[in-house]
């Protein structure tokens, strides 16, 4: 297991009212992502716990792209990964952001 935290700064906070949301499942080649809204700052923190070793630079690249695309300021994101590929990670991140943007 490898654990690390990635910090990023978004251009804007994520809209929507959901306090938290979870997407995905810790299955083989998959991951679960928990989004929690932590105030109005533009900071984004991502705690990654992954079963695959040695991919931190790839995670950093994926999360950089995600933050650029979605601007999820104020989000604390926690990930349990069981060997998901980057495309799956990005897809789940986008799905999670969509859930957080829900208005109720």
């Amino acid at each position, binding site marked *: 297991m490898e654990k690390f935290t990635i910090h990023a700064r978004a251009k804007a906070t994520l809209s929507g009212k959901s306090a*938290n949301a*979870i997407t995905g*499942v*810790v299955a083989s080649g998959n991951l679960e992502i*928990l989004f*929690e809204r932590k105030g109005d700052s533009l900071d984004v923190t991502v705690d990654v*716990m992954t*079963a695959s070793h040695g991919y931190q630079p790839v995670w950093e690249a994926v999360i950089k792209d995600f933050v650029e695309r979605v601007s999820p300021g104020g989000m604390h994101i926690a990930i*349990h990964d069981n060997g998901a590929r980057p495309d799956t990670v990005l897809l789940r991140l986008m799905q999670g952001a969509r859930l957080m943007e829900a208005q*109720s």
Partner: protein
Amino acid sequence: MIPENVMNEPSWYESSARARINGLLDADSFSEILGPVDRVMSPHLALFDLPPAFDDGMIIGRGSIDGRSVAVAAQEGQFMGGTFAEVSGAKLVGLLRAVARSAGTPQAVSTVFLLLDTGGVRLQEANAGEMAVSETIRAILDVRKAGVPVVALIGGRAGAFGGGGLVTACCSHIIISEQGRISVSGPEVIETNKGVEEFDSRDRALVWRVTGGRSRVLLGGADAYVKGDIASFRKSAAQVSNSVPSFSLQTLEQEQERLEQRLQAYGGCRDTPEIWTIAGLPTPDGIADLTEDEFIRLLAKEGIRHDAR
């Protein structure tokens, strides 16, 4: 363009445990207990270098179906095979005990739904898992004794095997789909212990002929058979009546007798088509290949001969 008989709705088999709960309950009615943000997770998996899940693969809470208050627990079959373990077991047992205790009070629920999807006990937490299974069984019986029905919904990828098969059989009502499977020893376990001649676990048609939804409901191991979409599960779940089948010594004695008769009639059979032949079902070899509508018509004609529920 997709024909009516090809399911185009969200499927129970494919969905996550959370999606099943959302489809089963009235919209936005689910209120989770010990949800992901509480981070009540397995303390053991890290020892095995395995990632945990925020909910340990067991999602519990309250909600409503058609406005009636219900309790619900769902296993995530894709996480560690939906296994019974220390935390997931404690969550389930706690929910059941709370339901039993609240029976007759303003907090009472009308029904408990168990969305089981499990290969049995989690090997990494085997002792705790075995205890969780037995505590769950005890708790289910207490809930039933308190007059609250416990309904199992079986149609997930992992089926209901090992302790999950036992837990299912203790429920007061079982709803199953074609993909659903219920058994104690799983196909691989039988093959490992008794040889491939006894049971070829890779012969998937055989596995489903023996453990699958159609066979289970025809033999009385389930009370309702539904198509595999979430909406059909919801519809069937909503129809489960509030009245609880009696749960007495007499019921169990009658059931024992029924099972003895069943063993006498079918005990020598090697495969289900032999059973269907003796039972006089039309096209005994083709039960698995009937369309869903054809099978549901057959079932309506045959009626359900159910177990102690």
